[in-house]
């Protein structure tokens, strides 16, 4: 059974159509790139999967269940903004994640914090934007979740941290888990992706394995993306 499944998923914001009858499936053990230009519906899709939005019609299921407390236990979500309370320090955040997520691996998180030279006594308020993003990613990736939904995980950080984050994603997820990475920085993540989903104006325009793209179309995902989303001249 697919870990994440959408059937005819549609979402309107007032009268604006954000997702238009989306059908897609993410199988266990895959790293999937959810790729599309800004405003294509990537974040809307991920927010519905996390129960932050209710679909207008159609369904989205995670391990066969509609989003709710049970699916939230399976999903580790990195939003495209900082959601940490700025008065908390790193230790308090680790306590928080330990309390609410039984699958949170505290020692893994502490190990990564040390590697990135982030002091446990530092408050979120005292951190730079980049450091906050790192802390957030460490917390999210330290869970032994079934599904990781990462919305623009590398958008705001420098290339060295970007490499570390991509390595972190690769080394922290297990064989049965899936990772969905939404981004428009395709070249950076291309090498770790198993599958790609191209999404544009709320519609899925392509769902394919990366190997298939390389063999059949004889090009990289980045090249294909530029091809598919080329603006008319």
């Amino acid at each position: 059974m697919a870990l994440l499944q959408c059937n005819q998923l549609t979402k309107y914001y007032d009268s604006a159509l954000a997702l238009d009858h989306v059908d897609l499936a993410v199988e266990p053990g895959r790293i999937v790139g959810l790729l599309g230009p800004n405003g294509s519906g990537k974040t809307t899709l991920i927010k519905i999967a996390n129960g932050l939005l209710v679909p207008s019609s159609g369904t989205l299921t995670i391990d066969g269940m509609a989003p709710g407390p049970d699916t939230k236990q399976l999903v580790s979500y990195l939003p495209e903004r900082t959601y940490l309370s700025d008065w908390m320090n790193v230790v308090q955040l680790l306590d928080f994640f330990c309390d609410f997520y039984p699958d949170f691996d505290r020692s893994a998180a502490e190990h990564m914090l040390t590697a990135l030279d982030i002091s446990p006594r530092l408050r979120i308020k005292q951190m730079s934007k980049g450091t906050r993003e790192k802390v957030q990613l460490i917390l999210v990736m330290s869970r032994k979740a079934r599904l990781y939904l990462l919305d623009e995980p590398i958008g705001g950080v420098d290339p060295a941290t970007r490499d570390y984050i991509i390595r972190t994603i690769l080394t922290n997820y297990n064989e049965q888990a899936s990772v969905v990475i939404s981004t428009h920085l395709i070249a950076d993540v291309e090498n770790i992706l198993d599958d790609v989903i191209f999404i544009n104006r709320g519609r899925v325009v392509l769902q394919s394995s990366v190997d298939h793209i390389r063999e059949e179309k004889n090009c990289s995902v980045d090249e294909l993306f530029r091809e598919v989303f080329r603006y008319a001249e």
Partner: protein
Amino acid sequence: MLSKLLKHEFRATGRVMLPVYLVLFLSAGLFCLTMHLADNYDLRALEIFRGLTAFVFGVTVIGAGIVTLALMVYRFYKNYMTDEGYLMFTLPVATAQLIWSKLLVALVWTVATAAAIVLAVLLATLGQPFWADLPTLRELWDTLLYYVPAGHVAGYAVEFVIAAILSSLGSYLLFYAAIALGHSFANHKIFLSVVFYIAFSIALQTVGSFAGIYGIVGLAENDFFHSPTPFLLSHYLMGGIAVFALLVAVVFYLVTYFTLKKRLNLQ
């Protein structure tokens, strides 16, 4: 999971509320001290100082009340309706638990602030002539018990506590419902929250006035209550107030619940 939410909410609010109580007791102590000094030493400076500490104490008492209410409402807004909501609404907890955790913590701090203010006033007036008049209070109490049976007095006390708790919950839920609804729209979220708060308040006042008038008239006219003792009538009145407060709390709870569940729309 509710206990964990409560634990973290107490942690988040305690770091503000405990210092507030500390300031409250410090200003009460300072006021008490300057009162005694001014009483015992005839110095103009001490008189001025007494006036000043009295003012400061008054401000801290009012401030403690305002901070309690404002913080509890702000926590709901900040923790659920801003970026922090991305974390809170993706925790593996039910929407009802999210509401109850904020509500119960708000109730506890409200009671604690009321208790702290009473204690602070007692501390501030320690050793004042007021205390010498305590036997008079005792006499008043005895007189009350002479005219009103003890069972009724206990009943009123229980009814008062229940009505106070329910209307306190209702007041917070009115804020929560307005904030949740206002933030379910795409734009002007805070402005709409204020509009909803005002609209709900007006509706509540209107319904409350009608319920009050018809309730009292009904009590007075209805044969079912013919010749009830005044004590019993008062119980009906207190009970009516408690039931109304309960209905208000339930309505605004449901508005909050379904808005967060079906219309959540974080920026």
